[in-house]
């Protein structure tokens, strides 16, 4: 079987509507980002998390096992004017990832937000605490099984 999958730094590359996406495994994560930074992707634009709780049977392809959480990193090369996206699968029972703080110090706040909202711990982060919710808050609000927390409101003149 001919393997026509393109790889970059050992990770399968996907073309998503004209955008370049790399599917990275947790072990290669920091080294690939470091290699990309040396290649010219100087800027880490965004680091965020995704909760696929409601899509347990999704497929990614490339022989990658989909997990509940995913961390998505967007890199920008200012010198060569191109962008690349990395997607890392993070299992729910061991929701941790090494930190990107040493390669891209600007991700300090993004990793705190991902921890606060999803519960993904970034090991090696200088200050792994909540950033949006109060420090003693229980739960991770952007997970799909976290309720909206709305109170019932009665609107006058509504049908119900």
């Amino acid at each position, binding site marked *: 079987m001919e393997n026509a999958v393109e790889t970059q730094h050992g990770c399968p590359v996907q073309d998503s509507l004209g955008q370049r996406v790399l599917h990275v495994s947790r072990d290669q994560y920091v080294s690939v980002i470091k290699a990309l930074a040396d290649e010219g992707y100087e800027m880490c634009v965004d680091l965020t998390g995704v909760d696929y709780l409601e899509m347990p049977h999704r497929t990614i392809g490339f022989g990658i096992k989909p997990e509940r959480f995913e961390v998505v990193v967007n890199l920008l090369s200012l010198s060569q004017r191109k962008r690349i996206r990395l997607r890392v699968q993070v299992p729910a029972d061991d929701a941790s990832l090494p930190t990107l703080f040493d390669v891209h110090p600007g991700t300090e706040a993004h990793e705190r937000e991902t921890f606060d909202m999803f519960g993904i711990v970034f090991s090696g982060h200088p200050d792994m605490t909540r950033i949006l*919710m109060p420090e003693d808050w229980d739960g991770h609000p952007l997970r799909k099984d976290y309720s909206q927390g709305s109170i019932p409101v009665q609107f006058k003149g509504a049908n119900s």
Partner: protein
Amino acid sequence: MGAVQNIADDGLGGMDHNFVTARIEDLVKWARSRSSWGASFGLACCAIEMMGTGASHYDLSRFGMEVFRASPRQADIMIVAGRVSQKMAPVLRQVYDQMMEPKWVISMGVCASSGGMFNNYAIVQGVDQIVPVDVYAPGCPPTPETLIHAIETLHQLIEDGEIMRRRTANNGGAGVELSSEPVEHTSVTIGTK
């Protein structure tokens, strides 16, 4: 009537028309309502409207509120303008506690009054869960005219004493009680050791 010609002749009785008498309490309330300074607590979009109300077109200075003091010690009215998140709530309470009596709170906008469009875990559903509110100004954001109406309502409540009467009835406010206690007098004769 004209000016008093000769005080020596008419005495103080001739000076009736040059005096206005009032109770001190009324004068104090009159002064308080016309020179109350706001504590700036602009949190979100309503803060922009509050700034617009303080600017030259919808001048707040004509109501005596030209200054928004950053220090709560020097402020009378706290206008909570914007949504209060769970993380901001203790800060809000602390600023309110640091204000000197008499103090009043205007809840500006729907987010401060009731949580507004944000009916979720992150926003406090109404700032009256944290501080006692005197006047609510609805709107998203309330137009400067609405805010001025709210401020003037509060000024009217201050001036006719309604707010203070309500406070004693509800046990509201800071609960400052002025009671006269007997003071022990120790007489001191000056000049002796």
